[in-house]
């Protein structure tokens, strides 16, 4: 379970990214974080990943307060989270197979199963025929699939996706969302997006953010900005 308790995040220059927000996300829940640019979606993702810490309030993940100063298990926390970054962060000197394998290698638990596990993920994200291809030869949609593959490999419990359909055409966006749908019920999935079509048609929980505050929290989905 992920619990935000009265979390405020102020940046050094004084702008408030999140203002006293409280919410809970259950295990294996599928949640959309929506809102206009600057609403605080990416800040929530960065806080869960402990890329930054809140100015006030606490964040509890699986009974562990990750905002405590004493919290020293950042590596273990991040090994439970698969993140799809807004800018993909795909390594250009590694091919598709190696980029996806990285998600498993960093956990340092893999053995001889690495190859079969990567192949399994390549099939899931629809890149089986491109495992030897380098990122420069891939389209934006394919890069996004590689990023998803890297995030979901290694049995990570939580998947965070920051604008996964941001630069994609509607058809490719739907294909990407289909991958997340395949994972539904198996992992906690948090998708930050402002793609209203997808959010409305999937009918999942939607947390609407505006100016750093929770504007609405729809359990059954759908929203309008």
């Amino acid at each position: 379970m992920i619990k935000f308790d009265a979390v405020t995040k102020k940046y050094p220059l004084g702008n408030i990214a999140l203002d006293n927000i409280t919410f809970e996300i259950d295990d294996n829940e599928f949640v959309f974080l929506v809102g206009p640019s600057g609403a605080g979606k990416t800040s929530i993702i960065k806080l869960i990943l402990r890329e930054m810490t809140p100015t006030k309030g606490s964040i509890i993940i699986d009974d562990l307060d990750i905002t405590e100063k004493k919290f020293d298990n950042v590596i273990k926390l991040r090994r439970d989270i698969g993140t799809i970054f807004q800018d993909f962060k795909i390594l250009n000197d590694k091919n598709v197979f190696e980029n996806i394998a990285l998600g498993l290698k960093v956990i340092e638990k893999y053995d001889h199963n690495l190859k079969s596990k990567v192949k399994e993920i390549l099939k899931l994200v629809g890149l089986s025929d491109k495992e030897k291809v380098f990122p420069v030869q891939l389209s934006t949609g394919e890069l996004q699939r590689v990023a998803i593959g890297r995030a979901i490999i290694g049995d990570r419990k939580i998947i965070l996706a920051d604008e996964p359909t941001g630069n994609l055409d509607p058809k490719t966006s739907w294909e990407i969302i289909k991958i997340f749908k395949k994972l539904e019920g198996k992992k906690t999935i948090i998708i930050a997006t402002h793609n209203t079509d997808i959010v409305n048609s999937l009918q999942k929980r939607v947390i609407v953010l505006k100016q750093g505050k929770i504007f609405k929290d729809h359990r059954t989905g759908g929203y309008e900005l």
Partner: protein
Amino acid sequence: MKEIISSLKRTPYQSLTAFLVLFLTLFLSLILFVSLSFLNSGLSYLETRPQVTVYFQTKINESDIFKIRDQLNNSNKISSIKYISQKEAFNIYKDMNKDNPLLLEMVTSDILPSSLEIFAKKPEYLPEIAEYLKKQGGVDEVQFQKDIVDRLLTLTSILRKTGLIFFAYLIIMSIVVLTTTFLFKIALKKEEIELLRLIGASNSYIRAPYIKEGLFLGASASIVSFLILISIILYLNPFLKSYLAGITNLSLNLYITEIKIWPFNIEFFAMAFALSLVFGSTIALISSFIATNKYLKV
């Protein structure tokens, strides 16, 4: 290995700089090590030769010679003293000139002086012993290798001190240059390191490729510097053979064991290579460790 090669290819100039710095450091250190080994063993060799030889006038009584010997023995500065009587001196003379009967005919034991061959506990005592002997009655001549021992002592001392300073300078300079070079290399992979941190890589996982690359560079630099040193030594071998003619054996005392260094033997070179390998790898390891530290704060 594949990862190391591709990383070296990706930053060829930085890799070359790191290799050259390591190579020069190891090459100079190897030369220093071999020179100091030779000088030390040369000094030890000289210490095994009679260091002071005092020749007595033929008229002196043997008892007077023994009195001088006993006084020297009581001074606590003497390691050993060997008495060579006129008869023994004649036997030595005969042995040395056995191929020249004419010389043998001309000499009898009466005209050869008896002598004492003295070995001091420390080379520093030699001038004092020689001065003492010169003042004794019945002494014809005092010979001692003052110049050679003095020069060797001075040279060894200077080389040891400057070697130590030079060695420390080499280590510091190498670590600074290598750390900077590795920092340049790592800066190019800043985004990759950032990603690895965010997806849960441990510090040791992130550090591993740089450490491996450092070890590879350290090992290859030590192999190349060793091969060049061996080539130089093989080239100089005929010259060294004539220069050190008469010296049958030079050994380096390492407290726990003694290693023969002349004539050249494989154990000495194996030790030099092992030291250079350990030294090169350690420098590279420390430098890559310091350089990666900058990017590993979670």
